[in-house]
């Protein structure tokens, strides 16, 4: 078996912490280490993730073909109307463009595509190479916006200019240009914008329904099932709710600064965080709408009375099982840690691609002693800790799945590609069901690692 020293690179030691072992001081938001096989993507990826679900906009990737192809319809973001976001558009730069510049081609592409699809706006993403050849995206976009009469928005997302977080900011900058352009006359004083939900598997529809039951108007979904016009008028909502990883937190801050709209961080994952998020909103509006608190209590009570007995059934099997997770944003990790407690399970490792030092400090506070906290991990480190902690189930994304499976460990996809709704109270049930169906599957007993151990235990018993 490989030793820890061969698995962990010296330069990465300060990006790993164990809860309870001294003060937490994790290095984060660093550039990924060369040769470390980071699980992270790039700035472009960050922007693409955030803006992707705006369904009536054209998303044109300015660059060579790969960046566009690898992001073609890989997310589970659903739309209740147009589906322009599910197509993959690229300027498909060729060698001559790299030499002579790609501005002409970009212009021609926008011309062609805007005529063909009549989008409400166009987002133009710059990729690494565009940053190098120096195309003036801003100028082309301005020109095309005038010509076509729709907003054409540059997204400055050259891949090498930082990590995913920088991409979030680039996306928010682009969206902020839309804000303030729409009609706001019918917006109620009891109204919100939902930020940071991407409507994976229709999750935003679950959440919107809760707010509607509470009597709250939802002005804009940013960006799940998103529409350009809604973003244009979202500055008149009374409150912004920013969920999870903070991908859209920058936009909320911009709105606060310019329009004075307050924002609250929420999470729709797990029972406690879901309920707490709804109560936060009720509390915020209770002066304007005194009935809202009671309506919210009823809602939560109804949902829980349906959910709890079912959860208890799963809990019986799952009690004491061990979990590791590696997620994009660390905020999601907080909710998951709590959600797993409801299932009686123990979280033994938490990692994220883009956590901040405050995030990690908070994680250290809410996790049990001995829990491994890790920033910007890679396959060898992940497999090392899965084995060390003898994990039963791993939560992560597509790139983490085969690592867990090779080690004979259950897995739950909790990323942008999921096709199963995991948010809200009904989502918690789906989540529990999925965890249960993986952990309790009989297949693990055939996996060599477990089979070998079972055999060793049996032999020992016979010897005695």
């Amino acid at each position, binding site marked *: 078996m490989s030793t820890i020293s061969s698995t962990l690179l010296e330069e990465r030691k300060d990006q790993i912490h164990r809860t309870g072992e001294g003060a937490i001081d994790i290095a984060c938001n660093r550039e990924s280490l060369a040769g*470390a096989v980071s*699980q992270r993507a790039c700035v472009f990826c960050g922007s693409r993730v955030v803006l992707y679900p705006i369904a009536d906009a054209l998303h044109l990737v300015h660059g060579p*073909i790969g960046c566009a192809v*690898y*992001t073609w319809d890989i997310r589970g973001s659903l739309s209740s109307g147009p589906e322009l976001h599910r197509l993959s558009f690229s*300027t498909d730069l060729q060698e001559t463009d790299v030499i002579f510049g790609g501005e002409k081609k970009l212009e021609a592409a926008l011309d062609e*595509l805007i005529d063909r699809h009549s989008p409400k706006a166009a987002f133009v993403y710059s990729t690494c190479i565009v940053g190098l050849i120096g195309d003036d995206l801003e100028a082309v976009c301005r020109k095309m916006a005038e010509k076509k009469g729709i907003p054409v928005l540059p997204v400055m997302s050259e891949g090498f200019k*930082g990590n995913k977080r920088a991409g979030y900011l680039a996306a928010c900058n682009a969206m902020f240009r839309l804000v303030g352009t729409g009609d706001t006359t019918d917006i109620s004083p009891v109204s919100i914008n939902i930020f940071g939900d991407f409507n994976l598997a229709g999750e935003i529809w679950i959440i919107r329904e809760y707010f509607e039951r509470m009597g709250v108007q939802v002005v804009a979904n940013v960006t799940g099932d998103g529409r350009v016009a809604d973003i244009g008028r979202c500055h008149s909502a009374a409150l912004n709710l920013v969920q999870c990883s903070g991908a859209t937190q920058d936009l909320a801050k911009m709105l606060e600064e310019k329009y004075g709209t307050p924002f609250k961080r929420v999470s729709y994952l797990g029972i406690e965080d879901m309920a707490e998020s709804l109560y936060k909103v009720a509390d915020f509006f209770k002066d304007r709408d005194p009935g809202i608190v009671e309506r919210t209590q009823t809602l939560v009570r109804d949902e829980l009375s349906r959910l709890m007995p079912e959860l208890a059934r799963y809990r019986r099997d799952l009690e004491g099982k061990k979990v590791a997770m590696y997620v994009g944003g660390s905020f999601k990790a907080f909710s998951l840690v709590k959600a797993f407690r409801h299932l009686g399970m123990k979280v033994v490792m938490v990692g994220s691609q883009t956590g901040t030092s405050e995030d990690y400090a908070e994680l250290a506070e809410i996790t049990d002693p001995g829990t491994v906290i890790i920033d910007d991990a890679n396959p060898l480190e992940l497999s090392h800790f899965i084995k060390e902690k003898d994990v039963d189930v791993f939560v992560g994304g597509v790139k983490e799945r085969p690592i867990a499976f090779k080690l004979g460990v259950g897995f739950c996809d909790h990323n942008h590609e999921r096709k199963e709704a995991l948010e809200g109270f009904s989502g918690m049930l789906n989540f529990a069901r999925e965890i249960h169906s993986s952990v309790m599957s009989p297949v693990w007993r055939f996996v060599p690692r477990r089979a*070998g151990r079972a055999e060793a235990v049996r032999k020992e018993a016979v010897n005695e």
Partner: protein
Amino acid sequence: MSKVKAARPNFVSTTNACKLCTPLGASLAFRGVEGAIPFLHGSQGCATYMRRYIISHFREPVDIASSALGEKNAIYGGGPNLKKGILNVMKKYEPQLIGVATTCLTETIGDDVPMYFNEFYKEFGDLDLPELVRVSTPSYNGTHTDGWHGAVRSLVEQLCLEKAAPTGRVNILPNMVSCEDVRHLRDICDHFGIGATILPDISETLDGPALEDYVKIPEGGTPIRDIKAMSGAEATIEFGRCLPARTGGSSLEERFGVPNHRLGLPMGLRESDRFFEALEDISGTPLPRRYELERGRLVDAYVDGHKYVFGKRAVVYGEEDLVVGLCAFLSEIGVDVVLAGTGSRGKGLEEAVARVTDGVARVAPEVREGVDFHDIAAEAGELAPDLLVGHSKGYRYAKEWGVPLVRVGFPIHDRFGGQRIRTVGYGGAQALFDRVVNAVIGKKQSDSSIGYGYI
């Protein structure tokens, strides 16, 4: 004769591309070498995206290292990061070989990888260094198949440097076939009694067994010493009618006089016949009885099933050589290929399709190079296909048109077992034939209001 229409003279943008980028092909090929790890010289995003993409097809861990260039490196050059990255990979993975592919970024800034390698050898020559192989893979200059063939050629040219003693073996450069196909090719050679060096061999490295522990680099792959000995082989067989002029096979022929047989992918009866004939020639062994039987069963099946598929109209798309193979196969079972499309250009797809369908196909396939799915879809009404044959990305169109999709190639993201799809040899033709016939029958069955349980 087949006709080629110029794909969009006013080409400006791509919608739903029918190709992938060059370093992805190189990474896949490097994954088929024993103890090797692919390394992309560029920014982190490319490597991560490609890993994600490859993993969802093979469902295996796919570690691709990156030099993770940031803004400063993009300006001052990526040499220091490349070297540091190689050292880190050496430390953690202890590879026998690191396959370095460039990306658009490093190609554009003009990073000189050979020079960095020389510096690296000088600086760290006292360490126990792995083999370093490099390939130049700017994506604005080709597709993933160029990356694949480029990596194979680089492996041969940078590892096989001198004439080896005669090995009595045959080199097989199989092109982008599935893991199952590689296993099948190996079995065939075994049954002929010839040792084969298959390069690359992804059969185990991208379709590995469940193991006791997580292995850093999966077992399997073409052994490096075998690659070094390729110059001593009896012959090389490389599959592909759309290959670049210079390939691994041509390089071995030029430099060491190893005869190079360039055949089409052995798909369908006739292209497989050519492969088996070549093996008979090279080995001096007549066709083993098991393949005689396989061939016989295939012809028998063709006869049994011909009425279900005759005159059905198929749209075929994907890697150029796969498209050629599919055209060869479909034309011989009486399916009319109404459109054969690929995302790449200038690979001679038109001539290749004509060669494998002439005299058999009733309708000369319409051939399109440099197309995307938007182009293909624009003609769907006119084409009125009964069937799509290609990778997963055609599914939304198949669904829209209400026709079945027979999945083959890369990527298969929406079905299980893409790495185990068999297409080569008589056995591969049999598997494909059964799937095509059943797709047609299934469509007929589900379109009918009567629950036929007997068709």
